């Protein structure tokens, strides 16, 4: 590649310098605002440790931020109250919250997701701020991308994918439980509340997002040079993942919004600020 040394390359542009006339900053600003709003809300909600389930009106709702509830005080808890050994190692400045035990997994999946990586590199690091727009001067020659530490750790994405797929099943189970309401006779019967719909849409959107993952597409046959040599079921799965992958960005945002909305809905109902309408 010695040719590059023959003539000088054009001078670097300053941060934000561009000849673009369109509002190039709108998209990164929108991504920044959207992700920041979610990070702030989810961090706040995860640290509350309360109002994350609803039992009033016979409902059986659990906020997706707290599912699975490994240790906790709600009826959804797998192993009951947090054990003494956990409370001994729990940081004293932090009130116990079941969400903190599990949110690293879906958070890690989104953090290492190929779509979000491209989006937050632009919106949070200005790397670049937008296509054909100048970058910060300090990073010019020191740029390493995902070639070395720390961003090389993004390659862990496939392990978060496997965990995230497990979460989908758990969230569908929560949606199933949301269909069963406690009657006055003390027995559970089939019913549908607004919260049921909210909790059902959540894993559906998450499935559309997670099953369109680039890594899953690779695992489902993309890694093969001859996809036709795979079993028919795998070829079908590859085509399905590819189809969802084309709308990966859309489902990434829809599922992000809805998981926050589902938590807010359960929280507001649990706090008594709104009532869950029973539809059936």
């Amino acid at each position, binding site marked *: 590649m010695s*040719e590059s040394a023959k003539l000088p390359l054009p001078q670097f542009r300053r941060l934000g310098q561009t*000849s673009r006339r369109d509002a190039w900053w709108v998209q990164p600003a929108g991504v920044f605002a959207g992700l920041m709003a979610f990070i702030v809300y989810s961090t706040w909600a995860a640290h509350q440790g309360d109002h994350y389930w609803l039992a009033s009106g016979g409902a059986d709702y659990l906020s997706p931020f707290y599912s699975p509830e490994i240790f906790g005080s709600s009826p959804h808890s797998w192993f009951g109250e947090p054990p003494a050994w956990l409370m001994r190692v729990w940081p004293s400045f932090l009130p116990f919250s079941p969400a903190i035990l599990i949110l690293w997994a879906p958070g890690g999946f989104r953090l290492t997701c190929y779509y979000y990586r*491209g989006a937050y590199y632009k919106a949070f690091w200005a790397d670049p701020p937008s296509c054909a727009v100048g970058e910060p001067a300090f990073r010019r020659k020191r740029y390493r991308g995902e*070639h070395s530490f720390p961003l090389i750790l993004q390659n862990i994405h496939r392990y978060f994918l496997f965990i995230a797929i497990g979460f989908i099943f758990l969230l569908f189970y929560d949606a199933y439980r949301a269909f069963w309401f406690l009657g006055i006779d003390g027995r559970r019967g089939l019913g549908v509340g607004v919260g049921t719909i909210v909790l059902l849409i959540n894993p559906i959107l998450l499935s559309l997002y997670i099953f369109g993952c680039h890594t899953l597409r690779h695992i489902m046959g993309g890694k093969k040079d*001859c996809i036709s040599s795979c079993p028919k079921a795998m070829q079908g799965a590859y085509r399905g993942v590819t189809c969802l992958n084309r709308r990966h960005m859309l489902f990434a945002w829809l599922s992000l919004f809805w998981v926050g909305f589902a938590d807010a809905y359960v929280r507001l109902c649990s706090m008594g600020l709104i009532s869950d309408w029973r539809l059936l």
Partner: protein
Amino acid sequence: MPATTFRIWRGDPTSAQFKEYTTDISEGMVVLDAVHQIQAENAPDLACRWNCKAGKCGSCSAEINGRPRLMCMTRMDELPPGETVTIEPMRAFPHVRDLVTDVSWNFGVKERIKRFRPRKPDAPDGTWRMQQTDVDRVQEFRKCIECFLCQDVCHVLRDHHKHEEFVGPRYLVHLAALEMHPLDTEERVREIRRAHGIGYCNITKCCTKVCPEHITITDNAIIPLKERVVDEFYDPLTRLLRVFKPRRGASKDG
């Protein structure tokens, strides 16, 4: 359409600046037509590379209002009416003169990529058999016209000048076309990681946005290659499984 003013980058690497030209625009004109008209009316020495005027030769790449585009495929009526149109040369390559850049670096990169090495013929007459589904995937990459707009917009080359370490999206597409080819038996993943520097790509998808052939560069070429690199170097489970299931020689899929 009334007369339109153009700001065109004029000069050579030692001294260059924008110069303004005004010319009449008629219906159906593209930016390259306007540049030719300016050459004919006001600036016969204006240097500009072009050939087919049909979006297939990839010669007339430039930056129009800051966006990497083919001049022959940018219709004047797509641009904001009444506003000055800015035309600059590509910024990821050395400037030669006016709108012309030296893109020869790209050809040097291509020479470093391991060539296509097919498996032994499937039939005695020296021919191969491939399934259409396997060919369709790499066919997308063969639409590339080598306009180098993706290289131009890639910030790794444009803003970080990593020409020595990173081959750019155009050649990652080329590598994907070779690596995913159902007949190819060559191993390139090690080079893709090291010499071709795929890790420098941070998936901004700018290359996909500017591709005039609408090749889904990031999703269909770069990310699948990144995943193959992960398989080979960063995934301990896959590496462990490979110990128990070694590859067979005939083709990469075995």
